[in-house]
């Protein structure tokens, strides 16, 4: 691992000030389970690693009347075991337990999971200068791409690897982004950016900004959710395709529904077309399949990843049917 310095701010104010004022290149370290991989390979080469572990108030889960506040430094294992999560948002528990391994969940954090970098094998190769790393071309587009994006690519075909993000977005989660300039809250869905906006980054997080909290609105009466993750191995695998569905189904009819797919696009992929087809109608297998197909209509697979469309359709269909 190359040399870097570590800064250990103790308060949110210190953190914000540090990020605003330092001239050094900076990487934020939450659990570190993703960043350390990139520091070792050299894909990340910051002068300064800002250790968020000791920043007061960034960890922990606070249930409130209007919803759940999740500190970004909350360990994924803690999220999965939290009584309020288990009771009100089982989809979050499912998503949390579907990711990585027990050991990684003991260290990895919610914020880290949301902000992790893509696993595109060209991006992760330190000797490849792809567009995401400031190079001129995407190597996956005409290279090996069985795990790459079928939707939303264009210049860069990464898929967003997070399992928590689709689940949280389906729940209508918002994030607070903070900096020395102040705080702003935005839907988690809007936090992510397509490569067409800025190919070098996956989120809207500015270089002086950090995630301050994640807010999940309280469940509506009858709200249910399901996360279906399709992968190659039984575990320890990123989604080849996944689907998070949250909604309210009464008498077999979906009055409210949100569908977000993972593993198929550079951002967690909201499937509004599918939601519209389902909303207000009795949920059947045929309708769920039709909704999935509609959501994937715009897809343009690469040479090796067309199969992901079938997997994504299956994931969406199964997650929708799980609401019944």
């Amino acid at each position, binding site marked *: 691992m190359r040399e870097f310095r570590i800064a250990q701010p103790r308060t949110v104010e210190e953190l914000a000030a540090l990020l605003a004022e330092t001239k050094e290149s900076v990487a934020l370290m939450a659990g570190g389970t993703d960043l350390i991989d990139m520091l070792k390979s050299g894909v990340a080469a910051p002068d300064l690693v800002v250790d968020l572990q000791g920043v007061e108030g960034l960890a922990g889960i606070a249930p409130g009347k209007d919803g759940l506040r999740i500190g970004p430094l909350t360990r994924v294992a803690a999220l999965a075991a939290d009584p309020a999560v288990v009771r009100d948002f089982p989809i979050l528990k499912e998503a949390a337990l579907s990711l990585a391994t027990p050991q990684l969940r003991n260290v990895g954090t919610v914020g880290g999971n949301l902000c992790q970098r893509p696993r595109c*094998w060209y991006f992760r190769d330190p000797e490849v200068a792809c567009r995401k790393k400031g190079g001129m071309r995407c*190597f996956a587009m005409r290279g090996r791409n069985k795990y790459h994006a079928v939707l939303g690519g264009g210049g860069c075909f990464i898929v967003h690897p997070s399992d928590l993000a689709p689940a949280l977005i389906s729940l209508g989660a918002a994030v607070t982004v903070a900096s020395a300039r102040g705080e702003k809250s935005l839907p988690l869905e809007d936090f992510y950016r397509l490569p067409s906006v800025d190919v070098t980054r996956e989120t809207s997080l500015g270089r002086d900004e950090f995630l301050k909290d994640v807010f999940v609105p309280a469940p509506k009466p009858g709200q249910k959710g399901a996360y279906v993750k399709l992968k*190659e*191995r*039984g575990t320890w695998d990123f989604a080849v395709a996944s689907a998070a569905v949250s909604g309210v189904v009464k008498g077999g009819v979906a009055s409210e529904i949100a569908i977000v797919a993972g593993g198929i696009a550079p951002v967690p992929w909201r499937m509004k077309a599918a939601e519209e087809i389902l909303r207000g109608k009795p949920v059947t297998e045929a309708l769920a399949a039709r909704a999935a197909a509609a959501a994937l209509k715009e897809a343009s697979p690469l040479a090796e990843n067309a199969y992901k469309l079938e997997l994504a359709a299956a994931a969406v269909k199964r997650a929708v049917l799980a609401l019944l």
Partner: protein
Amino acid sequence: MDAKYIGKATPRVDGRKVVTGRAEYTHDVRLKDMLFGMILRSPHAAAEVVSVDLAQAKALPGVLAALSLAEGRVRYAGQQVAAVAAVDERTAEKALGLIKVDYKVLPSVVEWEKAREPGAPQVREAKPNVEKFSEAARGDVEKGLKEADAVIERTYRTAFEVHNPAETHASVAAWEGERLTVYDSTQNVHGVRDGLARALKVPAAGITVIKHYMGGGFGSKLGLGEHTVVAALLAREAGRPVRVALSRRENGMCVGYRPSSFQTYKAGIKKDGTLTALSLVNYASGGIDYGDEVLEPAVDLYRIPNVKVEEFSVFTNTGAGCACRAPGNTQGMFGLEGLMDELAAAIGMDPLEVRRKNYTTRSQGDTGLPYSTKGLDLCYAAGAKAIGWERRNRRPGEGSGPVRRGIGMSSSLWWGTGVPGTLADIVLYPDGSVEVVSGTQDIGTGTRTHMAVVAAETLGLEPKDIVVNVGSSDYPWAPASGGSVTTPSVAPAVREAALKAVARLKQVAAGKLKAKAEDVLMDGRRFFVKGAEDKPVAWADVCRSLRRETVFHGEAAAYPQDQYAFNTFGAHFAEVEVDLETGKVRVLRYVAAQDSGRIINRQTAESQVVGGITQGLSAALFEERVLDSATGRSVNPNLRDYKIATSLDIPEIEVIFVDVVDERLNILGAKGLGEPARIPSSAAVGNAVFNAIGVHVREIPMTPKRVLEALKRKEAGS
């Protein structure tokens, strides 16, 4: 054999050492003043190395040696170009970055399919990219196909499977004057010693290679590694010990893999299940080196009167392949046994019946000799019973619903019969302690324990009483731990040495008992004359009378290969579930029946089989090295994207040994097991998937992508 330990389950004699973290692996060796060596590798698949400038690297404080390793031309991405040794890893890493290499990049070809095309860049000078390297023929295939009621043609493909042993390849080299000691993560201490002698032009007598414990090899550590030579050269230049331990990334790029295969079979079968003819054309790819011959199962397993095989190696600008647990037969069995199931389906016959119908008790290979023993029929029967063979789909894919179940099986055929001339010594000490020594190596298979079991059984002691020493080239010669030869080579040698020791002890005891040696009995650390059990002499007293340590030599004897064929056999049965919508395969239950002669230690033997199954399942479903077609660089030289089965991918496993003892083979009737347990496992899973969904995927790994593609093929009716 009325045995107390042989054939029973004995926990490993060195278990305590391993579970307390005190077993010394090469990775753990830390010598005084040891430096860390690292290797610079070519980023190009083909290039001329114009110059290597080490000056800046050498000038970096903490760097004590730097070498150019370039030999003019680079033929694959990852080939070594230069190396450094420094006081720590970070300094070595920095120094690599300071080496200036001037490459003249040359055209390259990465995919073997493209390397076959006319006009493809030539991988080797003055040689074409495609070379026939194996062939076999008997009878008249065209005639045989005409006699058949059904003829099918099928192509089966196997992927580049990377060994990925837990411990990456590593060597620590230390010179004392002209004497060289190398700690090496190797399956072959003697072979590495001899290889180093040749490479360094120093006498083999002055080299010692040591391997105490090793984190897996699976064939990738059978010979001298380039990194080992590098460690020795760096150590010589620096005048200090040097450790070179490859990274996981290097492990995935430049120390070998199982060569791929592309096997096209054409075969004929009569309605009654009689095979009439088989032809096989295989394209194997092992990068800059030859691929694996896959013909053995096709040529030898079934009675087929007309056979023709042609195998071609296709050379590409990728690293060299190497032996990987049962090289060739593993790929070949996936093809042949897949074909057998598709032939059975073509005539509507039980696939196991087809195998029985064409069963042979004579080798079908060149010699035509009768098998000394062959328990394959017993394996079929035992395995079929245990899995519930009658529960399979009579017609592949006949089930209904979105998730289909199926049962499939595959045979195993391998050698694994031992190497005559293997040596082992028993040393008796005057204090009554016993040592067994052999220059073999325990690569995780439990060799130490089986040696202790055989010695203890013969000497009337307990396995824990025996001190076992292996893993040094200074010990008596034994072959590489590969080819499933270790047990049938070492165990008989230990047995022979121990029998000699017993004879000597009885002789000494006879003197004390004032009896004839042939009348002396030995039991439970005592010697006595029959009928006078109450007047024994103790083991300790007899040993004390030896006055000094006494060495008894054992040697594995030759076996009559001119009269009999000697092989190992097995049959694996898998039950799977396939999700038609997602293409996901889950193995639900697995039964393995093995004929590996007499089992020495049931505990570790069972582990070998469990491991063979798991690796085969993993290869069948997940494992595949992926290369970037343009650059020849592996895009998954890691354990994230190169996927190995986890605890959640493993079914319930039942292991059966049919215990056919081959008295002609060696004094214990023992055969090898490691590879026989790997050969059929991918094939059995493949056939179970066929039974479940009614179409053979014909390519491993059977990822969701490939399963879905196969289902489309079925829909399209091809």
